[in-house]
């Protein structure tokens, strides 16, 4: 366990370092933030002052070293646009994104598992074929398009759900959360579904494949030979086994969910990290971009860790020590 954690930690450090360097160079290559931030009527003098103020007058490698030095002390720099610590900005926005991603994951499991189970148990029924065909939609429809359709139908036409924004929030652990209020939940439904779309399809397919494979296993037949009821066979013996790949993949996809929240958040005006990062990229707010990606990497590594831990909880055969 210790080794495992240690190994992860070292990998994390390497990846984070590589990532920060990549992003530093990447942002530099894209363009000059001053050009974008500065007022168009600003003259040469003003321009130079701004460049110096943002610390962009040094050669890139020096900027990177300065950044590294500060980063080691926990300071990831200040946003050019907001003039606030980048880390703080992101952390402020994080709960919104996290709860959206969790909501989406939850929705994906809630919808995907039963459908996948059904399709797996009755592979030849027309309902199952319908489910599988529809699940292709989840892979193919562009997120932004579905998002707007949802708004059109459920907010504008039917008026059932609020169209955009985060709604009422309640405070827990000093952070604001939407899921604690009814209004907040109502605001969350559509973006979460929108974000979940891809995952629902994924879960359906994984579940179905898992069910079909597991049903053929000797231990399922043995469970039936023990005289267990079909419900117990399905929901205990089969289900627990298919949960393993589902949890693994869904967990690993969590990082992707957060990344894709960029699109969903901008459509549903959801004030999360995704919107922040896309705005930041638009104005080349490098400190925020760098900090965001470093946090994402850390989060990704943490998620992988959690997935591995869950995996070993679900699958007793996997001992953590033996995982490379």
């Amino acid at each position, binding site marked *: 366990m210790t080794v495992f954690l240690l190994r992860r930690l070292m990998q994390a450090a390497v990846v984070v370092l590589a990532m920060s360097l990549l992003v530093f160079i990447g942002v530099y290559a894209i363009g000059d933030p001053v050009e974008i931030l500065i007022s168009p009527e600003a003259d040469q003098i003003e321009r130079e002052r701004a460049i110096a103020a943002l610390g962009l007058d040094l050669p890139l490698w020096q900027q990177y070293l300065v950044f590294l030095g500060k980063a080691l002390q926990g300071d990831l720099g200040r946003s050019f646009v907001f003039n606030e610590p980048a880390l703080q900005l992101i952390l402020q926005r994080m709960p919104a994104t996290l709860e959206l991603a969790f909501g989406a994951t939850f929705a994906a499991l809630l919808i995907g598992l039963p459908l996948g189970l059904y399709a797996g148990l009755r592979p030849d029924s027309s309902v199952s074929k319908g489910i599988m065909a529809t699940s292709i939609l989840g892979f193919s*429809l562009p*997120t932004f398009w579905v998002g707007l359709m949802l708004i059109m139908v459920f907010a504008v036409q039917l008026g059932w759900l609020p169209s955009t924004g985060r709604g009422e929030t309640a405070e827990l652990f000093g952070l604001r959360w939407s899921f604690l209020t009814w209004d907040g939940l109502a605001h969350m439904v559509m973006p979460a579904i929108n974000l979940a779309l891809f995952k629902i399809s994924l879960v359906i397919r994984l579940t179905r494949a898992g069910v079909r494979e597991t049903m053929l296993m000797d231990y399922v037949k043995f469970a039936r030979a023990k005289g267990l009821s079909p419900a117990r066979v399905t929901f205990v013996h089969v289900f627990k086994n298919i949960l393993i790949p589902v949890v693994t993949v869904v967990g690993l996809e969590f990082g992707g969910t957060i990344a894709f929240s960029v699109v969903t958040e901008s459509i549903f005006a959801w004030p999360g990290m995704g919107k922040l990062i896309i705005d930041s*990229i638009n104005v080349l707010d490098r400190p925020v971009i760098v900090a965001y990606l470093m946090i994402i990497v850390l989060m990704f590594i943490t998620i992988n860790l959690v997935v591995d831990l869950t995996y070993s909880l679900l699958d007793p055969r996997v001992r953590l020590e033996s995982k490379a």
Partner: protein
Amino acid sequence: MVFTIIALIAIFAPWIAPQNPYDLAQLDIMDGRMEPGTVGGAGFTYWLGTDDQGRDMLSGIMYGLRISLTVGAGSALIACLVGASLGMMAAYAGGRTDGLIMRLVDLQLSFPAILAALMILAFLGKGILNVVIALVVVEWAYYARTVRGSALVERRREYIEAAQCLALPTRRIIFRHLLPNCLPPLIVVATMQIARAIALEATLSFLGLGVPITEPSLGLLIANGYEYMLSGKYWISFYPGIALLVTIVSINLVGDQLRDVLNPRLKK
């Protein structure tokens, strides 16, 4: 079957499309946003209507199909080649090579795909080739991971030992014996990734990167029309959407068939 038709449409678009939607001289904004079935200024009927530039949607879809397929299949193919080679190398060599390649994979996978593509495109600029490059950079890791996984399993099979026992050259073992047996999962991943690449390209176009506006892909057509959704001009976004859908479904079907074809068990 459906896929064949789609592929044919894509290939022969320049000959069968009523209009060349990429030639600005053939477009007229005065014909913009016409409803399906209207007769335009130049005298021919826009069966699926026109978009805001006066582009015939039917022609736009045909050409867009071409681009979307090129981007999707092209990126998937290259990413597959790159990823599969690296994954193979990692699995067969093991040790340090394996470690290095897999760390690279980790790095790539932890970098949110869409952001990576966004930054690459912002850096490279727009263009079909650049989109393909961005998608390759974003996707190779999936293939590498898949191939490595199945290669590690296949490598322990006795037929590989038999090949070693026959003192066959390593290269031959990797490419003639190992690789073909790692293909099925790769094809599953590839069909999914083609669909994903097409969708990703659409999203990138929506975010203002992606392919040039004068040469719209299906995704860009949808993204363009999306703004007119609220005002009831559904056709600008709807028909390309349908085309995209049919394409992706048929790619998935082809993937399933391909997997069967490559499976010698099902060969006559």
